[in-house]
């Protein structure tokens, strides 16, 4: 079942599900003196190891120092939830962050008469953070999809262990805001029928590092998403260091590489719940959070991911980085358009010429290939005419030098095409978007394709 489909059957939210049970570490202690009882909560060694492991995997928590993680691990609770058990209910208040140690949970937003699954969370993920750190009511209900082992961390424990001035809580609040917006947007899309069919896949390839490929990809996505809000996604395959989320000021919680072991029946939901939502509209799917994870992104995984994304978005922009490996070739096979970014430097232009040759050999037609000359310095080492001579074709878009704006935007986590219309990067991104729209944008929104029952329900709702 993909995002947007309702929770079906009676095995969803409901009290028919068995209640949660603590793992017994706390509750089975013999009653001794009061003071010892209240404060002698050292968990067994192996439980402690598991808890530390879960906390270290969780987004934002891994930034905490070891001593703080150990303190937290000593004081969290471990809870077992059987499959189908409700963990939190939408609209209620909450004071606890739940981290998934094992199993998977379904995040459901109820918009009567439908219930929309907005995410499927797996080990290492967390939920309940918005209610806990922002003081909001729970935005969604969460039920255990399989038997789950959770680590529960209440606000009191968190605030007493983590220093309020450490910046960690601020980071956690940012993550909570970000996910709140993501889930809300996904729910709106699913409910109001904005899910589309068969997107245009655009590969953005820069044969030399430092040519500004990621910056341009991000701004292109920003530009397209202003035209088609919520329908453009950037897949960051610029390995081994994927920085698109960082440049957009987002905190990745999962990535494509971690989807490799996801079972086929939940792949779509898990993938869509991995996507990060930027406040300005664009969405980002991180390829890998750590350099070593990039090996997990296989051509098969990319093909599966893109087939899912094509059904859901209008444009899928893939930042390909510099390497031509199996993953890049797999993407190039699936793209309808390729953008090659070159800086006006000798080595970059030479590499771009080689890349264009390879693309021609791979069968990319000329009209589906766009060359961008990105001026990264005030005075170009190689003039445009020389670049065109070397590439044996004209440059389609030239991005003028934009001063320190791209670097400043990266520091503040903003996307220039969303915030600064006068920026040269914005102009370049607009020019690229115009080309894409001219060649691939048909302007017609394709009909919603979700299950018959919810469609009817949505129609009723409208």
């Amino acid at each position: 079942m993909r995002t947007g489909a309702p929770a079906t059957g009676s095995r969803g939210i409901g009290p028919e599900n068995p209640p949660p049970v603590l793992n017994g570490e706390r509750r089975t202690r013999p009653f001794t003196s009061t003071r010892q009882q209240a404060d002698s909560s050292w968990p067994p060694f192996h439980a402690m190891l598991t808890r530390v492991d879960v906390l270290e995997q969780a987004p934002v928590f891994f930034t905490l120092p070891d001593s703080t993680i150990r303190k937290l691990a000593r004081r969290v609770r471990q809870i077992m939830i059987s499959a189908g058990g409700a963990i939190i209910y939408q609209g209620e208040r909450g004071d606890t962050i739940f981290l998934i140690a094992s199993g998977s949970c379904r995040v459901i937003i109820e918009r009567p008469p439908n219930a929309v699954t907005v995410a499927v969370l797996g080990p290492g993920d967390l939920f309940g953070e918005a209610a806990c750190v922002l003081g909001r009511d729970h935005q969604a209900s969460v039920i255990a999809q399989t038997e789950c082992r959770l680590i529960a961390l209440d606000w009191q424990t968190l605030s007493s262990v983590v220093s309020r001035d450490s910046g960690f809580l601020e980071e956690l609040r940012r993550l909570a805001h970000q996910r709140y917006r993501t889930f809300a947007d996904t729910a709106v899309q699913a409910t109001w029928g904005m899910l589309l069919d068969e997107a245009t896949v655009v590969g953005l390839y820069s044969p030399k590092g430092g040519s500004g490929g990621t910056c341009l990809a991000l701004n292109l996505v920003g530009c397209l998403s202003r035209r088609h809000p919520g329908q453009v996604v950037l897949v960051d395959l610029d390995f081994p260091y994927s920085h698109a989320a960082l440049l957009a000021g987002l905190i990745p919680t999962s990535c494509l590489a971690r989807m490799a072991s996801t079972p086929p029946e939940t792949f779509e939901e898990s993938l869509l719940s991995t996507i990060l939502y930027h406040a300005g509209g664009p969405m980002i799917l991180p390829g890998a959070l750590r350099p070593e994870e990039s090996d997990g992104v296989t051509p098969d995984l990319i093909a599966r991911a893109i087939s899912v994304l094509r059904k859901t978005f209008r444009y899928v922009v893939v930042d390909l980085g510099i390497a031509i490996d199996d993953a890049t070739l797999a993407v190039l096979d699936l793209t309808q358009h390729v953008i090659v970014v070159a800086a006006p430097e000798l080595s970059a232009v030479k590499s771009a010429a080689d890349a264009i040759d390879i693309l021609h050999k791979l069968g990319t037609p000329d009209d589906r290939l766009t060359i961008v000359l990105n001026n990264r310095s005030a005075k170009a080492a190689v003039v445009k005419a020389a670049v065109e001579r070397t590439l044996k074709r004209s440059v389609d878009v030239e991005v003028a030098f934009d001063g320190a704006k791209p670097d400043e935007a990266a520091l503040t986590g903003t996307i220039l095409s969303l915030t600064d219309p006068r920026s040269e990067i914005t102009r370049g991104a607009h020019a690229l978007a115009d080309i894409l729209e001219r060649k691939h944008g048909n302007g017609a929104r394709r009909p919603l394709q979700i299950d018959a029952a919810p469609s009817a329900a949505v129609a009723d709702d409208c």
Partner: protein
Amino acid sequence: MLTRVVNIRPLEPTRLAIRRAVIRRHLRKVAAGKSQFLNFELKDREIDTSLLLLEMIKPLDPDSDPFRRFASAMRRSGADNAVIDGLASRESIVRARSARIAGAMRMEQLVPWITPLLWSREPTVRSSAARALATIGGVRSADALLIAIQRLGPRPSLILALARAAPDLYLEGVLGGSESRGEEPAVAMAAGLRGRRVATAALILQVRSGSRWARIASCRALGWLGAPAGVLELTLALANRDWRVRMSAVKALGAIPAYRPGPQLQACLTDRNPRVQRSARDALRRLGRR
């Protein structure tokens, strides 16, 4: 006593009022960040300085800057040590005041010191300790309150404090646990008072297979939650042999807005116990009004 003091020293009430005003003004300066120390003793014998401090702290959000300023001023001026000393004081009024300050300042590290005050002989100390733990909240506080319930029985103040202190899924975990130590009725009531729907499953389990008192408490708690999912179990409980369980189930069904009265509830109008009959009449009247 005040009359006697006034007779001896007629300006004494005015002097005390002026002192209180001075302390309040100083506390406002601390809140505004203009002073970094508390310039008074918490164990002042003339005026209740802790009350003045609580007046200022209570409306503050624990994440707000003024609250943090108070916390740091207390640390700087050694008032937090005075609070710890106060919790072990021989004077009950000092213990109660210290517990109130510890609670208002969310001094979570003092939970082990507040816990023994829950079974103090003085009701003021007990109640201050329970309220302090309720305000502090978290697993440690909930653990302490649960221990107090085991020792002292299901007292309303402890149940209320437990409902406020327990973090998410704490009470549900206790109700769903394999071990029974007799605290289930109190925990069930706390879960009902807490008002989280996630407790419904655990309460239904207690109605189905709990002890007599656990069933009674769980039925009422399901009513407080107003959970339609509990209707089936509550309807079955109407046929229980124990009239208290029947009465509790009747009251709970009367409190569930989605419940449509069926023949089982109508039959309770002719129950052999008059209190069940009266409850059934009340429930039907209440449901009829909706």
